[in-house]
Every structure is written in C-alpha cells, then in structure tokens.
C-alpha cells in the first residue's frame, strides 16, 4: 500500500509541475523585454509552409519557449545557485560571486583581440594624429577579475602581459598606469563599472600626466533608484543592489553637452536623469552608449581641449576632467567607424587620451 501511495505521489508531483508550467507557458502573459538581461525577447515565430519545412519555425519556437518560460529569472537564479552552490563550480556562464562581488572570469588572453585593438589605435594615429601637435596618452582600466582573481587564485588572463603587449604596440603614446590606484572596492558589486565617487584620484593622476590638475570640489549625490548592475541580471541571483552615487558641482552643471548619436547634434547633460531611471542607471553618465559626444566648459581653467577614445568606463571619468578643459570630445569606435572620425573631429594640438578597460581590449572585435 505504501508503495502505491509513493508511486501515486510521484506521478502527481511530476504531473503537477508539468501541468502548471505547461498551462502557464501557453496562457500566461508574455513580455517583450527582459529587464534583468536587458534584451528583447523572442516573438512567436511566423508559421507558414516555408518556415515549417525549413525547420526555422521549430528552432525559433524553441527560442520563444525558452524566452517566455514562466518565472524565467527565478529558474535562471536556481541554475546559478546550483552551479555555484551545489556543484561548487568556479563560475556559471563565465560569471561568479566572490566577497559579495559579481564578476566575469576573464581567463584567456587573446593575442588576436589585442592585435585588433592595437591595429585600430594605430590606424587612428596614422590617419588623424601622426602629423599633428596632439599629445597622446594611453591608459588601461583593470576589470574586477584582476583584483578578485588575485585574492582567490582564480584563473585569469595574464594582466601584466596584456598591459605590456598594449604598451609595446602603442609606443607613440605615453602610458599612464592607474592599476595601483584601484581596488575592488572602487567597483560596483553587481556591475562591470567603477564607482565615480571612488575614482577622483584616477582623474587627478591622469590629469597630472597630461599636464593639468583637476582638483575641483564635488558634491556627492545619491541616486534614489536601486542600481542592479549588468552582472546581476546575468547571474539572476538574489543579491543586494548597489547604490549609485555621482559627483556634481556648478562647473558640471554649466557644461554644454552635445550628443551626435543620431548624426545630428542634440543637447544633453553630464548626468542624464531620465536614463538614471531606466534599465541601466549607469547610462546616466554622459547618456550611456554614444559614438560621439562633446562637453563644452565655459568655466574652464584653460583653453586646452581633450579628445578621449574610450569605452563605457570613460563616461564616468570624463566629467572629473572637465574643469581643466574647455572642450572634451568623447569618441567610441565601437559605435562609429574609425574612418569617419575625421568628419566630426579636427585634430590640432589637443590632449588625446585612449582609455580602455581590459575587458574591451581583450574582446575588441567590436572596435571598428
């Protein structure tokens, strides 16, 4: 009798799970966008003779079923917890948690990627900078794995070699070493990026290396919205959100920020409070991803100008250099062809800073 009950219980358990999630999958409300993963979810595939016979309908349906599975983020969290907690694997989907920090395990140094990044920089130098009076500087931002891997003996790219390779390939620029200024506490726990309120010393070091002295006083402001960084969404684990702070003063308030995202100049501000309330609050720093943006400072100490070739780390650093420059131009060659730079930026005697994170240098295929 006991065995019959056990068997019945087994069937009821499995049946209940299948029925509940089947019905929920079919009849539940569907969302178009995954906030946690920051991506558009698959739409129900078009069914016609061509898509069915080619098998495309079926493969697309598979994607659709996965994307719209009920409690998707909870399930993804269960998977992450199981991989990291039960099976004690070092990472899940390349991500891990250590000391409360979520990070990406950057394990293999890619010579191909470093060469690509160096080749893009060389192209910019040869095409636009070589015969000008510009002063060229280069700095590399370490990613979180640089610090966490040291503490826990995790497999990591050879950061020393990465820096030395990039320095060797960019000898036409003066290298500014900011590695010693940073520690893991200078980064958000749930996101890739560094904390603006913790990098004023980085701005000073870079500024001094370029011959200026950015020593402005700032008010530290707190964003009321909780900040769930990009790794939070990817890992889907229940960890506490970060608090996002940003530094402000009257100089920054009076700057004129112009975005060329659409090709036409659009007035913006240093801190985009609309984006601060959006999916990725870090995008509040200089409007997030933008191929070309300029900051004009009517209160600048000097007439000097700065051009920054950068990734997203530059968005939160550039405001801290503003006081010393009358104009800062930020160029992101991940969203703009290098060949097109000349149409938007004229080079004469500016300071030119190439500021890139190890993550981007080691995954540089996106540099155009």
């Amino acid at each position, binding site marked *: 009798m006991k065995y019959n009950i056990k068997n019945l219980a087994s069937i009821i358990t499995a049946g209940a799970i299948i029925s509940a*999630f089947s019905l929920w999958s079919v009849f539940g409300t569907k969302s178009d966008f995954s906030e946690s993963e920051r991506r558009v979810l698959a739409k129900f595939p078009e069914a016609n003779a061509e898509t*069915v016979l080619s098998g495309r309908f079926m493969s697309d349906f598979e994607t659709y079923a996965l994307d719209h599975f009920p409690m998707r983020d909870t399930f993804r969290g269960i*998977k992450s917890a*199981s991989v990291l907690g039960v099976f004690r694997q070092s990472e899940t989907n390349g991500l891990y948690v250590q000391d409360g920090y979520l990070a990406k395990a950057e394990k293999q140094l890619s010579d191909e990627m470093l060469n690509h990044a160096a080749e893009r920089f060389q192209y910019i130098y040869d095409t636009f900078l070589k015969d000008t009076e510009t002063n060229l500087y280069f700095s590399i931002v370490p990613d979180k794995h640089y610090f966490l891997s040291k503490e826990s003996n995790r497999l990591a790219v050879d950061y020393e070699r990465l820096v030395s390779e990039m320095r060797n390939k960019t000898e036409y620029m003066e290298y500014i070493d900011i590695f010693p200024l940073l520690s893991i506490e200078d980064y958000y726990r749930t996101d890739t990026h560094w904390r603006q309120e913790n990098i004023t010393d980085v701005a000073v070091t870079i500024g001094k290396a370029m011959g200026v002295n950015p020593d402005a006083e700032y008010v530290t402001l707190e964003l009321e919205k909780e900040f769930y960084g990009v790794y939070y969404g990817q890992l889907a684990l229940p960890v506490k959100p970060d608090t996002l702070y940003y530094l402000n003063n009257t100089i920054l308030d009076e700057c004129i920020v112009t975005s060329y995202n659409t090709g036409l100049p659009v007035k913006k501000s240093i801190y985009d409070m609309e984006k601060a309330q959006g999916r990725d609050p870090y995008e509040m720093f200089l409007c997030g991803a933008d191929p070309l943006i300029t900051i004009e400072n009517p209160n600048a100490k000097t007439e000097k100008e700065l051009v920054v070739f950068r990734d997203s780390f530059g968005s939160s650093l550039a405001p801290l250099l503003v006081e010393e420059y009358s104009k800062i131009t930020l160029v992101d060659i991940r969203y703009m062809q290098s060949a097109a730079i000349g149409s938007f930026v004229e080079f004469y005697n500016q300071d030119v800073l190439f500021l890139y994170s190890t993550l981007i240098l080691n995954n540089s295929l996106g540099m155009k």
Partner: protein
Amino acid sequence: MLFSSISFLYYFFPAVLILYFAVPKMLKNTVLLLTSLAFYAWGEPKYVILMIISVICGYVCGLLIEKYREKNAAKLTLLASCVISLGMLGYFKYADFFITNFNTVTRLSISLLKLALPIGISFYTFQILSYTVDVYRGIVPAQRNPINLAAYVTMFPQLIAGPIVRYSDVARQLDSRTHSVDKAAEGVRRFIFGLSKKIFIANILGELAGLFLYSKQQSVVFCWIYAAAYSLQIYFDFSGYSDMAVGLGKILGFDFMENFNYPYISSSITEFWRRWHISLGSWFRDYVYIPLGGNRVSKLKWFRNIFVVWMLTGFWHGAAWNFIVWGLYFAFFLILEKLYLHKFLSKYKAVGHFYVLLAVMVSFVIFGAPNFRLAFDCIKGMFGLAGLPLITAETAYYLRSYAVILVIAVIGATPLPKKLYTMAEKKFAAVTAVFQPVVIAVLFIAATAYLVDGSFNPFLYFRF
C-alpha cells in the same frame, strides 16, 4: 525534438499524454503513430517522408516474406528489404564518406552530395531490418496492421536515440499492453533520473571536454581529465537518453530492453560490451555475427567475424575513419582477451577494472576527436609523450571547478547509489515514500532551470 528541451517537456509531452489517455484502447497506437510523426517532423520535416517510405517497405516485405515462406521469393523479398533499408542508410549516411575516399584514391573530384543526415535513421533502419529478418526466420508473424508496425518503428521514445527495440520484444505489447500507476510511476522516475543524468552530468562534463579542446595550456593531467570527462559524458548522455526512453515507454505501457548496465565496472572488454549499448551489441550478434558463423568456425574465420562485426559497429556510429578505427580497436582487445587474457582477467579483477578503464578512455579519445591528429596528440599527451607539462594553472583551475561533478559522475557510474537507495528503501520505507516525490520535484525543477538558462543543448548521439 530533444527530450531535454522545454518544447518537449512542457508542450509536446503533456499534449501526447492527454491525447493518448483520452482515446480508447483501439486508437492508442494511432495516437502514438501520429504524435511520433509530429515529434519526428518537428526536427526533420522533410525526412518524415523517408521514414514513412521505410515503414511501408518494411510492412510490405514482412507480408510478402510470410506469404512466400519457405520459397525463394521470401529470400528475395528479405534481400530486397535489406537492400532498400541499407541502401537508404548508405545513401544518406555514408555516400559522402565513400565519395571522399574514392576521390582521395583516384584523385578524381566527384562532387559530394552534402546531404543532411536524417535523425535516427541508423536506429529505425536496424529496427525495420530486425522485423523483416525475424519474420523470415519465423520468430514473429508479419504484422498485418500497418498502424501497429508504423507505431513500432516511429515510436517517439526510442526513435532518435534507441534503444534499438526489436519487434519481437514489443510485438505483443503493440496489440495489448497494460497501463498502471506503478508502471507509470516507475516510468516517471526513470525519465527524470535520465533527464538529470543528461543535464546535470553529461552536459557539464561536455563543457569540461570542450574546454580541453580549446585550451592553449594543455598538460598531461588535462589530457587525462579530458579522456575521463568525455568517457563519462558519453556514458551519462547516452544512458541518460536510454533511461528517458525506457521511462517514457513505461508511461505509455511498453517495456523496452535495458541498454546499459554499469559498463564502467567491467573487468574485461568482453564484459564491457555486454553492459554498453546492449541493444546494438545484441543486434550485431544476432543479425551479423551469428549468421557469419559466430565462433563455431575455424579460428581464422572466427577472428574475421569479430573484425567484420566490430568494423561495422564502429561504422554504424559514424561515417568517418575514426569510428572504424574505434570499432577495430575493440576487436583487437576482444581477440586478445579470447586468446590470452580471459583467465588472467577473471582471476585479477582489480587489474581487469584498471585495464578496462584505460582501454575505454583511450577508445573514447579516438571516438570523440574531431580528427586523428588531435586524438593521437591527446593519447601521446596522456602518456607523457607530447612534451606537455604535468599540470598547468589552467588544469588545476578546471580540476577544482569540476571536481564535484567528476566525483558524482564516477560514483554515479557504479551501482553504489542504487544499492544505497534500495537499502534505504527497505529500512526506511515511510521516509523514502515522502523523500521520493520531493527528489522528483527538486530534480525536475532544477533540470528545468538548466534548460531555461541554456539555449544550446545538443545530444551527442544525434549524429548516429
């Protein structure tokens, strides 16, 4: 469609169960046939026609063989059935292999056909052949109901990855089978444990094996980890799929043969092949080895029979030389055991276990390598002949990262967990009565979590 997919677990399978149990007994095989065709068409919409043609050929040949029993026409019909079935298999699976080798030898450049391999063709071809041969031998009567025969060949639980269910094993069940709570519960348990083997062990070990292939810091230890991980992956992948097939069969009232019986505890290669892919081994034994004379012939012919069977076994797994070499590699060990090692291995079981694990791991390096060079490099690396360091930081990292899963896999490949559970079930019946549904729920939810998180989940045996 994969069993380990959201579309199967939460769309297809519930729909099949509702239809299957809603219709009266006489229509169950029809439902099974139609849903199986839908299952196949989901993955291979064009090749469903090919399978239907194969079934019709098998059906007609079976009837003709029975009609002309004891006459030459029966033999001719059997021959025709074999030519048609093997011809289709040869055309779709092996044509490009032969053309490539022909081009290499003759230095011609005949264009390749580049046909997509119809999923499960190796399995259903062998099932149809077993049916017509068994009808010819008088072991089973020809099936007069085309739906029953088609339901047998196309039955989705075993269609794409076996086990190779013989018609003679399920002929009676096709006409009449019992459905019960106990049997269905056994099926549910079996299915979920198979699903867990596939998702929690095979897929994760597959990641580890993949890391080795892409590693730029290989070491002697990493070569061994790869060989062990791949050997365990292929076992948990294939046996997990077989468990799911047996489990689904039980839910639908069928009893399929077991396909695996803890092969890694074997103390000889002979024993290993009695425990590994049992349905394929027994198929080759009954339909190739014995008809060739088996061991009741001169020693030379006996060895020839072994080589033929194992060359074909290797070739069945894939149209590439590494599979043929893999099959012949086992033929070599089987002959060695029959000639010299049998008594020694029976006496020294521990040595036998070690020898089997070593031989099988090396075999799977040959089996799984994308090319001979990589296989050869890995084998050289395992034995310290490739100039690799003993261990690198990368190897140590991945060993740490996958240690738990490797230990679980090693223990799970032995009968120990089953023995412990059986003991616990006897001693603490009341506890296990509660425990079992909880385990089922946890495994099912966790398996779903892995599926939801991952979008790419290929099954190794699909290419066969």
